[in-house]
């Protein structure tokens, strides 16, 4: 499984590690839904740390698409909402 952290690059993460990452992801999602910036920052940091710890940085030359994509480390709730908005941050 390839996970991209925006602004950081891609990581290879084993399927076994995914369960614990999904838990961390759920916390991030809950914080986005409730609009709680402080909880979001904590949850996102935990999730990204999890990806960095459990994953292995993927070769920079690789041209493979990621399976999952995560917001950049300095993102705010607002940034994530824009990411999820089809007309949002991602340049078309």
């Amino acid at each position: 499984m390839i996970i991209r952290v925006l602004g950081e690059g891609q990581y290879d993460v084993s399927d076994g590690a995914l369960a614990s990452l999904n838990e961390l992801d759920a916390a991030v999602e809950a914080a986005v839904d409730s609009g709680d910036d402080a909880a979001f920052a904590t949850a996102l940091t935990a999730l990204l740390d999890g990806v960095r710890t459990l994953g292995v940085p993927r070769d920079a030359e690789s041209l493979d698409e990621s399976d999952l994509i995560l917001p950049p480390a300095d993102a705010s709730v607002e940034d994530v909402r824009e990411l999820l908005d089809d007309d949002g941050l991602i340049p078309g």
Partner: protein
Amino acid sequence: MSLMKRISLIFRSKANKALDKAEDPRETLDYSYQRQLDLLAKVRRGVADVATSRKRVELQVNQLEGQSTKLQGQAEKALSVGREDLAREALTRKSGLASQITDLKAQHAQLQGEEEKLTLAQQRLQAKVESFRTRKETIKATYTAAEAQTKINEAMSGIGEEMGDVGMAIQRAEDKTAQMQARAGAIDELIASGALEDVSQVGGSDDITRELDAMSSEADVEAELAALRASSQPQAIESAEDGGDILEAEPEKSAESRQEP
């Protein structure tokens, strides 16, 4: 659906929309490669722009710190001649500068962070563009137009995602740099107008320095007067107590002429 999944789906649909379908799919490769080179050039410019802003902030911090040191010196000098009011004024101005300096240093750290991020993004994109170029040549040499589509899609999706990511990084860096440039411009204007560079100047002249200079020339006069008293006949000084005005006026003139060269 998980957040990670939602973001990746949106990202992918964007990247796919950006793909131009040429009549010969192999032409798509060349077109995409050109866009990659354009983006790479844009990231390089972005890195240079952020570096320029960072250096500008560095220069401003140096200027303000120089001014702060000057005010500290003035405060010490003022206190040494017993002018607590002047010392207080100098220190008040110095503390005004301190918050500006703290603010600028925080901006500097942010710009440095953006610069590092963009530099890394540039390296990652560079590696992928290079890899794409090799893949592109292989596909064009090995596959017929009909066969090429799958291979092209594979190469394009990976690079498309990277380009989307880098595009966002540039956008964020540009936004931050633009905000800071507006503030840096305001500080440059303040420095240019003399309000910060010569923060001790009020009404066109440096009041603290002027007062301190006046005080130190008075102190010089007093010192010389004391020296004269000590060396000359005691009775002459004693008799001069009545005509003190004349004696005081004399050394002031000599003090002015001393300052001229």
